[in-house]
């Protein structure tokens, strides 16, 4: 490894750059790059000028589009709210009309009672708690009425 490093150093010492460039390349390059930058600036300034003239029209266009979009969204929102409510009622009515024959009166009563079942159960638990308390404390019904 050390020997090869030395060999590389020797090689570098003898090496004249094996690559070359076209005649006057480095003399002309700074001018070419300046020209390219100037042409890029011109292109950019042309684009900026177009943008300057078009900008007010764009702004007006965007305002109209934004106003239209907001109006459409608002109207759509209001109408969709109404439709959903209308559709909801219509759907329930339709369901009852079409499917009602599958259910008996008892089904509907069961469903309605099912909703209230939790509330009733909770009330029953509370009542039991009060009764137990009165029994444990040996408070009779008459005393309680007198106190109230």
């Amino acid at each position, binding site marked *: 490894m050390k020997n090869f490093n030395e060999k590389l150093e020797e090689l570098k010492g003898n090496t004249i750059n094996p690559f070359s460039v*076209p005649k006057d390349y480095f003399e002309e390059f700074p001018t070419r790059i300046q020209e*390219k930058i100037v042409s890029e600036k011109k292109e950019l300034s042309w684009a900026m000028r177009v943008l300057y003239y078009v900008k007010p029209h764009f702004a007006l266009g965007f305002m109209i589009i934004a106003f239209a979009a907001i109006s459409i969204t608002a109207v759509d929102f209001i109408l969709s709210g109404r439709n959903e409510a209308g559709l909801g009622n219509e759907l329930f009515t339709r369901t009852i009309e079409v499917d009602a024959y599958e259910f008996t009166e008892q089904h509907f009563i069961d469903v309605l009672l099912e909703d209230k079942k939790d509330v009733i159960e909770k009330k029953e638990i509370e009542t039991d708690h009060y009764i137990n308390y009165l029994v444990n404390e040996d408070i009779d019904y008459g005393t309680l009425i007198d106190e109230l």
Partner: protein
Amino acid sequence: MSEYSDKELLDLFSDKEKRNYAFNLIVRKYQEKLYWHIRKIVVKHDDTDDILQNTFIKVWKGLDGFRKDSKLYTWLYRIATNESLTFLKQQKTKYLLPIVDYENHLSETLECDEYFNGDEIQCKLQKAILELPEKQRIVFNLKYFEEMKYDDMSEILETSVGALKASYHHAVKKIENYFKED
């Protein structure tokens, strides 16, 4: 021209009336170094010319936001390196070439390049360098040909000094093996 330091050039560039002049001085100061750095990566003169132009256009656009406490020349090298690597990636994608085939293509380019006039041993060295992976090749070129400090190289390639030393060591080993095999 050469009496201007990087800091002086940047101060000159910040003066709006003198910025064209300052940029011209920056181009003149660094064009050759960057050219040879890019040329050793992409081999062909025409490709190098395109990349060098793109590099300086980016420098022109980015110089306004350049922090003066950073080193100008490591920043320039970083742009040139990134542009070269992007170019190589584009070429591989464009021609749907696997990496190994593309390195072979560069070796062939070297042989028939009208702007390569090295002797047999120089040609062999360049071919051995072209066998190296891209990043290793850049590390080897910067250290061997340009004798750049590892600290500066670390800033350019955003890699630790230790990793760069290891990379250079592996590169020399591979070149040695190439010479032994041939």
